[in-house]
């Protein structure tokens, strides 16, 4: 099914490396099929550039089906582009108009420095999870999986939180660059499940402390994170994490 064709102007952020000065570069693209995905549109741009011996635009991507969390573009002022509930790699050109100018930027947040062009460093997320986003068990010696029944509603809620892909859109969308949605999703998943109970207090304290160390901002409840989350992670996880945090702080005092 060949869709309609679009002519587009792209304004793309180019930045050689972390310390270099960045700028918007303008590119014109012709005859882009509305059936192409957004990243396929960038492939076409890069192929053109390579043919002209120019350096292509660096952007992060891998699975191209909305699950690995690699893709991370800020399009016309919105994380992952104009549609809610999807990643950039799932966005298709049928959502754009002929003649449109599209602004493409990397995630902008202090803890995510720019690596090159549209690629940012999200290793802060890994470090937060290393601080406590796990259940301390070793391989082997675990009891039969059906030994602990878990009510379906609980398991479903845990799964809702666990669906986070760690893309960082929540941070990029937040004017404070807060990572609360990301951190609370992991804290909630484990707090909801019996397996997570033993360490629930030190977990939330350690993860929040690491989050602060990484320089993420505080949450002022604007809800921008939830609105832009491609996996629709609920902001109620933040409330749950706050409860966990306060109860853990009181106990640890």
């Amino acid at each position, binding site marked *: 099914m060949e869709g309609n064709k679009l002519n587009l102007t792209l304004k793309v952020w180019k930045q050689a*490396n972390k310390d270099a000065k960045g700028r918007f570069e303008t590119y014109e693209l012709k005859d882009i*099929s509305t059936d192409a995905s957004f990243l396929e549109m960038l492939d076409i741009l890069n192929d053109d550039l390579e043919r002209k011996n120019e350096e*292509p635009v660096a952007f992060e991507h891998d699975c191209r*089906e909305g*699950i690995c969390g*690699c893709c991370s573009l800020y399009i016309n002022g919105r994380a992952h582009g104009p549609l809610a509930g999807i990643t950039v790699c*799932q966005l298709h050109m049928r959502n754009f108009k002929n003649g449109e100018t599209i602004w493409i930027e990397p995630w902008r947040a202090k803890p995510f420095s720019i690596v090159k062009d549209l690629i940012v460093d999200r290793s802060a997320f890994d470090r937060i999870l290393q601080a406590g986003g796990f259940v301390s*068990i070793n391989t082997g010696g675990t009891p039969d*999986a059906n030994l602990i029944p878990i009510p379906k509603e609980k398991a479903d809620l845990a799964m809702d939180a666990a669906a986070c892909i760690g893309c960082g859109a929540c941070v990029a969308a937040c004017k404070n660059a807060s990572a609360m949605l990301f951190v609370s999703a992991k804290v909630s998943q484990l707090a909801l499940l019996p397996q997570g109970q033993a360490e629930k207090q030190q977990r939330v304290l350690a993860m929040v402390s690491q989050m602060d160390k990484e320089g993420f901002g505080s949450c002022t409840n604007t809800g921008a994170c939830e609105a832009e989350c491609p996996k629709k992670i609920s902001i109620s996880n933040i409330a749950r994490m706050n409860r966990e945090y306060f109860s853990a702080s009181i106990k640890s005092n």
Partner: protein
Amino acid sequence: MKLESKIPAGELKDKWTNHKFNMKLVNPANKRKYNVLVVGTGLAGASAAASLAELGYNVSVFCYQDSARRAHSIAAQGGINASKNYQNDGDSDYRLFYDTIKGGDYRAREANVYRLAEVSGNIIDQCVAQGVPFAREYGGLLANRSFGGAQVSRTFYARGQTGQQLLLGAYSALNRQIGLGKVKTYYRREMLELVIVDGHARGIIVRNLVTGELEKYSGDAVLLATGGYSNVFYLSTNAMNSNATAIWRAHRKGALFGNPCYTQIHPTCIPVHGDYQSKLTLMSESLRNDGRIWVPNKVGDNRAPNDIPENERDYFLERKYPSFGNLVPRDVASRNAKEQCDAGKGVGDTKMAVYLDFAEAIGRLGQKAIEDKYGNLFDMYQTITGENPYKVPMRIFPAPHYTMGGLWVDYNLMTTIPGLFALGEANFSDHGANRLGASALMQGLADGYFVIPYTLGDYLATNKLAKVTTEHPEFAKEEKSVNELVGKLLAIKGKRTVDDFHKVLGRIMWNNVGMSRNEEGLKKAIKEIAELRAEFWKDVNVVGSAQDLNQTLERAGRVADYLELGELMAKDALSRNESCGGHFRAEYQTEENEAKRDDENYTFVSAWEYKNPGEWEFHKEDLDFEFVHPTQRSYK
């Protein structure tokens, strides 16, 4: 070269237990003296790295993504098999073993497959203990679904995101060890060479993908868990950057490649829509639990699907395979879809698609129930195609998905290079000529959590190796050779882009080394690939520099390797004069167009030794069937 599979003697069900007892152990206090390099952080790599670190080894992990969590395993949708028999429907280790051996068309080792079934239950226990939120019934116990090639319900799942949840579980175990200082991470690194010292794998050369610098790492063993090579077809369901480079460079260094031609073409993917297309999206096999596959009876019937009455539809899988119906194994489903399209009954604009229809299931169970089970897959379909699958049937077509072939390994997962191990999809081991759905996740985690922790210890305890550091001259030598290769790619400055070559290669592979193969096509492919390779080294244009983040350069190296691997796949397919599982040679089929094996002459694993580009020496490992008797696979 004599290939020793090292399969332990004894009864099938005792082999692994006896072997575990007979293997040597490394004293707990000595484990911290060993450094293990793990390349790849998918299910196989992450589970291995975490488990080895827990035991006390010093582990370094490498992956090309910016985080271990983004490895391609994250994309697995449908589920993971285990012989728990929670459904009381007659499952057992033996049945899982039997289904897997049969599903693989009797081209896998019995002992490996039995071990896989034997540890499958532990995998589920392990994942649940980590907090993996598997689907549950209202009573709070674990839920199961059915997958192809089985008549029991043994697939555990977490909505349509099973791979994600299992990987996040393994990644959390890995994170814990990173926090404890037992695992060092080297993300955004690509392994470009293996370093061998005195015949043993002792290190790797990687490219730092941010700075472009080459880095050297030494260790006492190297584990490759770098995934499959379906991207040799250019269009596949794999992640864009999935590649064969790590295993290919090891192959060039002497590791034999097992069954390269065994590739799995998955029946239910969203069809191709344009020449700019970059990848194909899988619609999970679980959809075949409720979706019914059909084409119009009449050739060239252009009516909209909902206008075609029941009696003018051919539910060809249900018709031909009444006992398995839509849940026949993948190779059978794919080939049948192709057959219908070849006969002119394909649907959609391109006519290269069949319908996957949920109308009956929605009528029976209600839309809500279907939404609960497959909501995210339906959404995915709709965002890509712009069509609503609750209203019109999905259009699907087969696509390259999984590679059963890979580095040849023995029962201990060791390649033909001592100290070099291959885990997960990167090895050839457990799936024979066709993998059953939900078995790759099982195998990746079996290898990482439950096999390598034992077999690696045995290797280290039996081989007392001298300490080697990156100061050893072999490291400088290999670093230099990688540097030269990179320099060579950048210096060609030809006219064609890397993707251009990759697409041409993909087309050659799909047309001749895809779902159906024949002698003429394979010979043509071998010739064309060799020519394309020569052209690549003359005319590719790799822009940018080596000392920078350069995604074109990354792709160029991978495509260079595919241009050799593709040829080997064709050669392997040409040498196997039979049809088995995913390897279908048009010359060898039954009267009913099913794969016709030749057990007398081909009950073996092909293992290829690299000599020069385009030149290999053939070896084989005979397969013994002591416990099951190979029969013509029947799903009727």
